[in-house]
């Protein structure tokens, strides 16, 4: 098992014929991901990367049976693309696009609230279930199949964590990049919950950063769930000063409760195995799994 995406996912690429979309779609296809086509308004009927291009997402759903979408549409048009996917009945919408205005995401969040879909991102590296589906921009070879789930806000730090886990002789069930924006579709808590409930996942790595309440919410949920499945956690940004945005729009210390220290304390109190050094994530996972 795995979560969100697997070998049976029927994936379309929105912004398929653009340079980003073309590059990453071909990487995804090369990985063996089941890409059934793409959407670029006005280019319907053409073929791109040997896959059909559709004018609308609805057409891709009706003709190719698409149930999952990955979005590379430029920021000014990305909110519209997400809502189009939700309207067409896509179940999992993974948005890579960085730089979407907050006002647009407020509308998106409201629009998809009552739709039967899950949004991942925006401004995220995507989701990968090793050896089945890579629906994102991550380097596929880093992620070997295994028993550890990963939830993270950041791209390269996810690859780092996966690499460390793999070097311990372990592997990944599904790695979910939730994104670093102030408004994201799937929170840390929701992603952790998916992995805790996945029978094949034996441990979860949860990587967060300064700013916001996502990690604290996830930790509280975990504590109350009574789950025995271990979580290994790391929070980046212990050395980041308050009031300065660190790359991700969401990574800014606003008050005393969203510093790295405060988050780690809440996580430790919830039974999460927190590491202070980003170099010790893999080691800790191996140690915790060995002690079960």
């Amino acid at each position, binding site marked *: 098992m795995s979560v969100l995406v697997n070998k049976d996912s029927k994936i379309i690429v929105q912004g398929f014929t653009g340079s980003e979309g073309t590059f990453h779609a071909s990487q995804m296809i090369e990985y063996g991901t089941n890409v059934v086509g793409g959407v670029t308004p006005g280019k319907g009927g053409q073929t791109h990367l040997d896959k059909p291009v559709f004018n609308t997402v609805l057409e891709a759903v009706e003709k190719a049976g698409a149930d999952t979408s990955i979005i590379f549409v430029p920021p000014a048009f990305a909110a519209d693309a997400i809502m189009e996917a939700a309207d067409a009945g896509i179940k999992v919408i993974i948005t890579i696009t960085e730089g979407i205005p907050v006002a647009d995401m407020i509308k998106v969040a409201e629009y998809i609230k009552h739709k039967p879909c899950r949004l991942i991102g925006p401004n995220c590296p995507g989701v990968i279930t090793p050896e089945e589906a890579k629906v994102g921009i991550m380097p596929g070879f880093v992620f070997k199949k295994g028993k550890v789930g990963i939830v993270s*806000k950041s791209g390269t730090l996810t690859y780092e964590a996966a690499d460390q886990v793999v070097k311990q002789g372990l592997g990944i069930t599904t790695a979910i990049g939730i994104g670093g924006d102030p408004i994201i579709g799937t929170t840390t808590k929701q992603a952790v919950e998916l992995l805790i409930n996945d029978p094949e996942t034996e441990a979860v790595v949860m990587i967060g950063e300064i700013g916001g309440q996502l990690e604290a919410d996830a930790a509280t949920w975990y504590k109350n769930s009574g789950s025995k499945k271990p979580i290994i956690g790391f929070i980046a940004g212990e050395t980041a000063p308050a009031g300065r945005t660190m*790359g991700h729009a969401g990574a800014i210390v606003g008050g005393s409760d969203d510093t790295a220290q405060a988050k780690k304390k809440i996580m430790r109190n919830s039974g999460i195995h927190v590491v202070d050094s980003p170099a010790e994530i893999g080691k800790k996972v191996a140690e915790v799994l060995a002690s079960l």
Partner: protein
Amino acid sequence: MNLHEYQGKEILSTFGVRIQRGIVAQNAQEAVTAAKHLTSETGTKWYVIKAQVHAGGRGKGGGVKLAKNLQEVEQIAGQIIGMNLVTPQTSAQGKKVHQVLVAEDVYYPGESETDEFYMSVLLNRATGRNMIMYSTEGGMDIESVAEKTPHLIFTEEVDPSVGLMPFQARRIAFNLGLSGTAFKEMTKFVSSLYTAYVKSDSSLFEINPVLKTSDNKIMAVDAKVTIDDNALYRHKDYVNLRDLREENPIEVEAKEVGLNYVDLDGNVGCMVNGAGLAMATMDLIKQAGGEPANFLDVGGTADAARVEAAFKIILKDPAVKAILINIFGGIVRCDRVAQGVIDAYKNMGTINVPIIVRLQGTNADLAKELIDKSGLDVQSAVEFQEAADKVQAVLA
């Protein structure tokens, strides 16, 4: 993008929010002209001279002063313009003041007592909706109000499908204890303030204080406005409101070459791909006994040109005693990055601080070999911890 008080107030005024009126001046002479103009426009007898810098707590540092005649306007404006204003929100060196706002006096006596409130509009990240946060305790540091008297802070969340409703504006005015004309004025103030927030694509409005004048008008006496950078493409007229003098010059330069850089106070520079990994690398530097000198995300294409640009920016800081490069090569191959580092190093001539390069991911071994054989004074590492150990060694 942060705006000056006078720029923020101009935007508010465009959307019908009543503001304390004022005219910006670049020197003492302009301040006098502005004051004369202001009196003919508003009838004000006294003036408030306010330093225009991107920092709060200006009053505490002597950046806001009352002038009771034109001589005082000239004298005070002369004092404030050019000073290094130190406030609780600036560094110890303070911020240089380039201009002042000459504003009308709005605390004139009248039929009732004046009253000050606090009001901000911002995103509630937990719900993904905008909210209005407000308090009866205006004119004070809101953080300390939140700490000491949290029951005096109220919030009103806005449903994006309908926007701010009149009953919400009324609730705010009631909670602030207003009645009569002031009540009506406040409901109008709140609804136009929210409209301004949405229409300007702002990510923060902080109005402190919102004043009830002695004749029951409600107005913004100060305005801290932050525009969402991601939305600037649809507000071309706001783009030139950016005052580069208020920003760190190295950060501005970094931005021009597409690097995401934040200047910090430490002694170890770092160059990393990805924001999360960059923060993690800063943390590791601290654990290795150093202090990060910066945050720097080189992004997805770490080629020679970008690495060189990043080197130049990091080395502008004389406090830097070592540089740690940490790149996780995914789509970007590590040997390409290694070659970029070598080429950049050679182009730069001599770099007088030790450099530790940690390349992990695609072709990491090949990259290490390239670095090791380059003959340059660059140490290579593959594992994250190994890089930290090497930083520790060079600092010892």
